[in-house]
């Protein structure tokens, strides 16, 4: 496809929705209000496993303003449980509360109290008396009653990548690393709470809820409520953070919709922060056993990655990051195996870089251990094992600039000044540690549709049911349309986040920019073609650079419109059918038959660890990334910077702590679930390494939303080792892990 001369793609333009956001004009899910709306407050279970024995509503009903109490007695039979997204459904869990008195996890919804005001609903909820029949609950891996199964047995589609004979090669290897790692439970905690507002009018349901998947929500709700999807509209124009937590439908939405139907009035739910820990999804804890065998000069001869993930009792949710870790380096003998452990927990779900974050923490820490064992510089070790062909099936990468990222990052960081000896670099009482790690994230592109309408005044409206989860989707979609139509960016109005618009995939797997920009470009090109054909202003074969001014006057009063669908490489016609049923057919990463597509980067961390108190402070974070064509360097930098900070947070702070006896979370608030504050984050630098990938898609775009937070975890752990000589293999790394460091 040729481009117009405008050159808006790749320009560092400010967000087109920025003014609306800072002036409060942008309405987020929680901002919507309707006349005559009622307020819902959730009551959640105080046990993790058992049954509701009895519910006494007397005291709650006496609270002035309470107008309804809904329990399984009112909802069972009216709302169906749904299937997991991974199983072809739309939900993040198959556990549907209020369909029976059974409790399958901590904080499961057991009742919804409806009031004329938020306060009356809350007071009613506080006074609802729920008695339970409590059964012993298994919290996690170490509980005797959990059930662990191989992923290949749990799921027919699961594959454990392997090649050669890893075990024999490991036994014969000159150098061997044989280590275990773990990562904790984490929660997304988007600032916007898990709000839902439902309203019925003439048998049609409208849902206002921040969502990364409005078409998926529409179809999922239709299935759960037993109604026609065409009678449902889901609106999500602005989203106060998501990170995967709003990608699949959660059970609350159908419950609130059903209550609104029974009540005949709009119902608005704003759950509390702590309820958000149990009514939505989370990143489950993982364990890893990594074995690396290498020659004395650092060449990998064996790589084995075995991992375990926690999930709920009924669901086989898994992230299986071995798809990435078995393909990062050249190695002739590779073994991998994933198992899942069923515990009495809610079903986990997507959280920024779901597979890559925990799995690359393990592999990239192990690579650093190998670097120490071989005495080879960590960057050089990666160069020795770099490849342009993935080792499992021998497929070529569409592009891979890993070492270019390391070189650019190392230069900016001053890596050559690093004294490799642990504890050798000091600044007064502070031990200085420098660590680095690779980062990678699959580039997936999904079928999408878009509509563009051009008006006689030279303004254009772009419509697609995509989502801006704070990343800048409005802006990059606008930039592509401006360039392709040959109009100033200010003339483009972008409409997204509405299931009445042409379908777009879930905002997950970092696919939005690639999927949606390509289809918008297609719709714009089609529109120009129609325009010039109609006007006879130019031959239809050479219209790319033609200004629109000449033809605008000929347009009808309501303009002209073009519609496009896009089937990216690796998808089939079936993908379009799925798209119109709320399913996203993401194709890419390691799933393609003919090639492999990932974005890469190198991340560098400088830590200072106080020799007496062992406080860990991060003084510098640098990431160098190669992710194809950058549509907007400003929003891209912002995302990667956010990713680096997230990675730091994940490495040093974040952990949802679970009481092993009761299987309940106990730090379910932002005072005790730690994330860094501004004062914890000093220097952060994002470097773009130029990369042109013509094969990956028409516009050459790779996803980058999740790339930033992957490698940071290992880079931090590697820096801790460099500063202290202590290898911490369990995240998060806290000061108490370093007490034994000699002062």
């Amino acid at each position, binding site marked *: 496809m040729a481009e117009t001369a405008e050159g808006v793609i790749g320009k560092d333009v400010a967000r087109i929705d920025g003014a609306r956001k800072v002036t409060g004009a942008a309405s987020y899910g929680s901002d919507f209000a309707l006349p005559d709306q009622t307020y819902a407050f959730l009551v959640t279970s105080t046990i993790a496993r058992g049954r509701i024995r009895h519910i006494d509503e007397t*005291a709650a009903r*006496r609270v002035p303003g309470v107008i309804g109490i809904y329990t399984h007695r009112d909802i069972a039979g009216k709302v169906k449980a749904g299937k997991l997204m991974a199983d072809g459904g739309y939900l993040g869990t198959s556990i549907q509360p209020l369909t029976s008195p059974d409790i399958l996890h901590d904080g499961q919804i057991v009742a919804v109290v409806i009031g004329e005001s938020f306060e009356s609903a809350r*007071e009613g909820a*506080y*006074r609802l008396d729920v008695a339970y029949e409590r059964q012993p609950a298994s919290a996690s891996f170490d509980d005797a009653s959990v059930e662990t199964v191989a992923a290949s047995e749990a799921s027919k589609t699961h594959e454990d990548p392997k090649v050669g004979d890893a075990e024999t090669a490991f036994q014969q290897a000159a150098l061997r690393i044989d280590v275990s790692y773990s990562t904790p439970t984490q929660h997304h905690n988007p600032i916007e709470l898990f709000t839902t507002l439902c309203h019925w009018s003439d048998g049609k349901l409208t849902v206002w809820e921040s969502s990364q998947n409005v078409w998926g929500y529409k179809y999922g709700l239709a299935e759960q409520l037993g109604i026609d999807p065409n009678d449902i509209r889901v609106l999500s124009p602005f989203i106060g953070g998501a990170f995967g937590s709003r990608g699949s439908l959660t059970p609350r939405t159908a419950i609130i919709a059903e209550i609104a139907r029974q009540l005949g009035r709009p119902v608005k739910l704003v759950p*509390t922060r*702590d309820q958000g820990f149990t009514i939505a999804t989370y990143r489950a804890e993982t364990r890893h056993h990594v074995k690396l065998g290498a020659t004395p000069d650092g060449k990998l001869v064996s790589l084995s990655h075995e991992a375990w993930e926690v999930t709920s009792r009924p669901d086989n949710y898994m992230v299986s990051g071995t798809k990435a870790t078995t393909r990062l380096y050249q190695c002739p003998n590779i073994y991998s195996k994933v198992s899942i452990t069923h515990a009495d927990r809610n079903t986990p779900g997507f959280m920024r870089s779901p597979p890559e974050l925990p799995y690359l923490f393990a592999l990239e820490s192990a690579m650093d251990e190998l670097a120490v064992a071989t005495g080879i510089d960590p960057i050089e070790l990666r160069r020795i094992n770099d490849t342009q062909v993935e080792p499992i099936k021998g497929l070529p990468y569409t592009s891979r600039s890993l070492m270019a990222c390391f070189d650019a990052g190392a230069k900016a960081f001053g890596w050559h000044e690093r004294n490799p000896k642990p504890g050798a670099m000091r600044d007064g009482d502070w031990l200085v540690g420098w660590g680095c790690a690779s980062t990678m994230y699959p580039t997936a592109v999904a079928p999408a549709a878009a509509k563009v309408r051009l008006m006689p005044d030279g303004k254009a409206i772009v419509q697609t049911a995509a989502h801006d989860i704070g990343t800048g989707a409005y802006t990059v979609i606008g930039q592509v349309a401006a360039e392709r139509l040959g109009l100033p960016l200010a003339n483009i109005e972008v409409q997204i986040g509405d299931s009445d618009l042409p379908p777009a995939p879930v905002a997950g797997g970092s696919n939005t920019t690639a999927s949606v920009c390509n289809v918008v470009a297609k719709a714009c090109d089609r529109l120009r073609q129609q325009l010039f054909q109609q006007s006879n202003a130019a031959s239809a074969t050479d219209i790319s650079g033609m200004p629109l001014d000449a033809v605008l006057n000929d347009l009808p009063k309501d303009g002209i419109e073009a519609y496009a669908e896009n089937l990216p490489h690796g998808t089939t016609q079936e993908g379009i059918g799925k798209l119109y049923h709320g399913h996203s057919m993401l194709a890419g990463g390691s799933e393609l038959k003919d090639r492999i597509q990932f974005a890469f980067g190198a991340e560098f961390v400088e830590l200072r660890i106080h020799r*007496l*108190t062992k*406080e860990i*402070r991060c003084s510098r974070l640098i990431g160098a990334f190669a992710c194809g064509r950058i549509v907007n360097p400003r929003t891209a930098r912002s995302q990667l910077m956010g990713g680096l900070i997230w990675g730091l947070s994940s490495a040093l*702070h974040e952990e949802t*702590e679970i009481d092993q006896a009761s299987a309940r979370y*106990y*730090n379910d*608030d932002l*005072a*005790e679930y*730690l994330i*860094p*504050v*501004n*004062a*914890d984050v000093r220097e952060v630098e994002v470097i773009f390494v130029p990369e042109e990938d013509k094969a990956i898609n028409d516009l050459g775009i790779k996803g980058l939303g999740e790339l930033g937070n992957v490698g940071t975890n290992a880079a931090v752990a590697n820096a801790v080792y460099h500063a202290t000589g202590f290898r911490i293999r369990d995240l998060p790394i*806290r*000061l*108490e892990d370093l*007490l034994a460091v000699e002062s």
Partner: protein
Amino acid sequence: MKPSLYFRPTNLQEALTALSANSWSVLAGGTDFYPARLGKPLEENVLDVSAIDGQEKISFNDGRWRLSLQATWSDLIADNRLPARFDGLKRAAREVGGVQIQNRATICGNLCNASPAADGIPNLLALDAQVELMSLQGRRTLPIADFVKGNRRTFRREDELVTALLVPDSGRPARSVFLKLGARKYLVISIVMVGAVLELAEDSRIVSARIAVGACSPVAQRLPLLEEGLIGRRLETALADMVHERHLAPLAPIDDVRGTADYRRDAVITLLQRSLTELAR
């Protein structure tokens, strides 16, 4: 369900009358009150003292500073009249939550809530502050150490209201400090805190020393042995070397989610050394 009362008196007499007649939970800024009651129905009477007027928030009279029950952390931070002995308490004020919390939360409320990790208490101990309590029976004062009974418990009688904190000011040159250690840099519950006030003679010799440690015992504790050892010494950075494990006798740190007892014991020594080094600079 017994109905609970909410009362927001506009003068002290109304408040004291109410306290004598009924049992109340006293609410000032509400920043500790609210989060402690999430998920539970309010089944207590609430006496909101935020509207009582006629009290100057921070004043000086007869050699004593008076911080009234409505003085917030932000009021303290903004008050330029306060002498150097308040510098530590001001630094603690900047660590009490974010600015929005500092604008609402009161110094007296922080004390009455009596959390072992309350940021304000070590420096109030180091300032030798007295608590002023009023009831219909009259007025009495208690030293801070005699006011805080234990974890979230005080010796305030049910009919009494804490009306002010009184801080003596000898007028001598003084230096003070507050140091806090948390898992991150800011907005974090303390693992260990140190508050200290030293009064100095003209030749820089230490005339009086008060050093208190928070979050290492149910109630923040002063360290008398260390204080005695400092008196008469010249204030210089070498004093940091004096700090010894035996000075920590009054402390009883526990293992919790924020840190182990061993770590706290180790960290408090470092914080004490840093405090003395900073005071000498």
